[in-house]
């Protein structure tokens, strides 16, 4: 490989592409060529760095300088100053929100300092489309070690002892699962990767696939060796075109390098991996439904047992693990179970990746040791709540999880603590909400989702969630009745107890947890016919406070229905008949003269 004295890493994750990183990359290439630096400086595309909100993001190594929100016109200056003259362009470096300090290296900033990157170890650092970069960073060394120095049972023991638990939701011991499949009788076995990423507000699996696809391939091969399988399937959502493309490239490259296919690394172990595209059904993330879908059928769950480890894909013993679970495996094999289990907390070992979003200053992807508190994540790493608003709740576990209030912010993030609090780890969505978010509305949002996604096979889920949704809709429309809360609780508990699969069993969680922690908000809707957060349309109307209105006319311009009238410099008025409650005027008024009551 050629040696370059500097590397310019341009993030080509989905978030940064959306904010325009492609033209930035082209600009760097052009400018570097123009200055005659093409032989010394290499421009590389990488996967998500984590701080998507500040994209397009650019890193320059060896210094590790982090330039954020880079514009095309900044590129000549960076090339001239930083790459030619060796002077870091301080002006464009990331600026800490509180201290306004600018650090010269990415690893010094608060957002990164407190993270521990295992599953994301390569994301943002290597070019995911070039296998050599992965290999140069210890890639496929774990596979080589497993194949040449370890027996399959030793691999399983190492994974067991590491304490690794599934990152896809359930949190089952990965080593134990592998042991079941290894013990199962049968000459044909399968390894499946669950990359269906069903949580509607999360994108960590996608980022791993986009930023470091070889890690998943390597881990699946190790799993194949451990249980005695020779075929693997990755079930990935068709809506993730970049991830699919990078996986295809990675599979092709691994095959060409003798790292996938027949007689891997010259041993007698053979293994191949195929991609199957999911077509957008949440329930297909459930393992038995996923297997049905890989087989080309409607993705409906079936009762367990038999578990996939005994009867899985085409009725053969099969292991299914999540993308992030796999991403931890090569490191465990290389560095050992002891190293891994020294990270995290007593019952939850290692790290967890979260996609933190919503009302938070640094939206993005983070990886933290288990046992970190919610407060550290929300305030220390992600910079707290924007616009001086008050924190209200944090939601984890997606549609299967719950909303946790401010009083629980000191809680450590662990599988068991989250469940006790009425939520769950889930696959890693973490959505922060402020005082403007209504908890009844959020419960309704999740239930609408699960209700639409219910496969309809069993009545408690199909009919029960529908009933619950009707009640929630009634409440948010101001038609709630005394006793509705109790009715919701009863329905919720009976659905949890009788639904066939995890979707139905967990669907009531968002409702139960919001009732548990925000009962007063439900009561305000039912008894006072008020939405304290001002979010439920039927319960608010918009008014202009005459004293505060300067008559600037901004609201009038943005109103789509001409509901606002008024002379310049005179107080304006809203015609309630015409108002469709679109919130535009409220967002726009520079003087805070518009209120929702």
């Amino acid at each position: 490989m050629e040696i370059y004295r500097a590397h310019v890493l341009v993030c080509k994750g989905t978030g940064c592409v959306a904010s325009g990183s492609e033209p930035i990359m082209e600009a760097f290439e052009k400018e570097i060529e123009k200055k005659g630096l093409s032989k010394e400086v290499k421009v590389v595309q990488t996967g998500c760095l984590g701080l998507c909100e500040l994209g397009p993001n650019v890193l320059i190594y060896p210094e590790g300088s982090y330039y954020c929100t880079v514009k095309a016109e900044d590129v000549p200056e960076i090339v001239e100053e930083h790459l030619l003259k060796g002077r870091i362009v301080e002006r464009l470096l990331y600026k800490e929100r509180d201290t306004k300090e600018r650090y010269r290296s990415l690893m010094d900033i608060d957002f990164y300092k407190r993270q521990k990157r295992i599953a994301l170890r390569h994301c943002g650092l290597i070019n995911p489309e070039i296998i050599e970069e992965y290999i140069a960073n210890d890639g496929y060394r774990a596979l080589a070690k497993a194949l040449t120095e370890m027996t399959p049972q030793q691999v399983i023991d190492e994974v067991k002892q590491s304490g690794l638990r599934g990152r896809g939701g359930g949190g089952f011991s990965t080593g134990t699962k592998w042991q079941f499949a290894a013990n199962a009788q049968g000459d044909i076995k399968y390894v499946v990767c669950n990359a269906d990423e069903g949580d509607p507000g999360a994108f960590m699996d996608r980022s791993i696939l986009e930023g470091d696809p070889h890690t998943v391939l390597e881990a699946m091969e190790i799993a194949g060796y451990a249980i005695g399988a020779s075929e693997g399937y990755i079930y990935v959502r068709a809506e993730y075109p970049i991830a699919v493309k990078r996986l295809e490239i990675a599979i092709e490259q691994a095959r060409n390098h003798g790292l996938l296919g027949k007689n891997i690394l010259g041993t007698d172990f053979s293994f191949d991996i195929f991609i199957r595209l999911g077509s957008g059904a949440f329930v297909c993330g459930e393992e038995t439904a996923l297997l049905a879908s890989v087989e080309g059928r409607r993705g409906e769950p079936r009762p367990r047992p038999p578990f996939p480890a005994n009867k899985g894909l085409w009725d053969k013993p099969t292991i299914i693990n999540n993308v992030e679970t796999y991403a931890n495996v090569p490191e465990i094999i290389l560095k050992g179970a002891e190293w891994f289990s020294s990270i995290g907390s007593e019952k939850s070992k290692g790290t967890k990746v979260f996609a933190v979003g919503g009302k938070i200053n640094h939206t993005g992807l983070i990886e933290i040791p288990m046992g970190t508190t919610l407060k550290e994540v929300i305030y220390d790493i992600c910079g707290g709540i924007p616009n001086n608003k008050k924190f209200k709740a944090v939601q984890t576990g997606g549609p299967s999880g719950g909303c946790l209030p401010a009083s629980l912010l000191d809680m450590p993030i662990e599988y068991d603590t989250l469940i006790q609090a009425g939520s769950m780890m889930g696959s890693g969505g973490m959505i922060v909400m402020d005082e403007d978010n209504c908890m009844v509305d959020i419960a309704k949002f999740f239930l609408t989702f699960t209700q639409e996604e219910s496969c309809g096979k069993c009545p408690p889920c199909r009919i029960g969630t529908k009933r619950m949704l009707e009640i929630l809709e009634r409440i948010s429309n101001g038609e709630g009745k005394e006793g509705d809360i109790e009715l919701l609780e009863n329905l919720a508990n009976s659905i949890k107890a009788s639904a066939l699969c995890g979707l139905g069993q967990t669907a009531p969680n968002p409702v139960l947890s919001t009732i548990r922690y925000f009962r007063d908000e439900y009561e305000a809707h039912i008894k006072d016919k008020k939405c304290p957060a001002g979010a439920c349309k039927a319960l608010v109307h918009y008014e202009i406070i005459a004293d505060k209105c300067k008559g600037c006319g901004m609201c009038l311009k943005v109103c789509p229905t001409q509901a606002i009238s008024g002379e310049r410099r005179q107080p304006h008025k809203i015609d309630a008949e015409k108002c469709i409650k679109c919130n535009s005027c409220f967002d726009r008024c520079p003087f805070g003269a518009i209120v929702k009551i």
Partner: protein
Amino acid sequence: MAVALNQQQEFTAKLKQIEEMLKKYKGQKGALLQALQEAQNIMGYLPIEVQEMVAETLDITLSEVYSTITFYSFFSLKPKGKYQIRTCLGTACYVRGAEKILDRLKTELGIEVGDTTDDGKFSLNACRCIGACGLAPAIIINDEVYGRLTPDKIPDILKKFE
């Protein structure tokens, strides 16, 4: 008239293309989803003619094909507009006001979610996290992401496609 004729020819050509494509799946186990995905990529949606073709090639019943299509939200039974707008209703976008963005799109286009405008120009759909939560609320038009939206930015964005 000439336009209609052209459309008809295009449709027939694409059907032929699908027929060719399907050959490789003949007799293969578990190929239904992949076959449908590829067929939709060619035609843009899955009209009855395509469904029949798939059923015949894979030797399964038409009702099995139909029930699979309606099970997965990725598949469409109706033709889509030239510009396909997908509004992210993922959690991160939702808590930052995605529903108001969707409402405004509905008002501006005069259609509901799942529909296409009469001139065949725009279709409107909802989707889940598109991986741009940092730019929430966000929408995608064809392949391009528009982020950090407020409802009043919608008319200007739509104007670009006039």
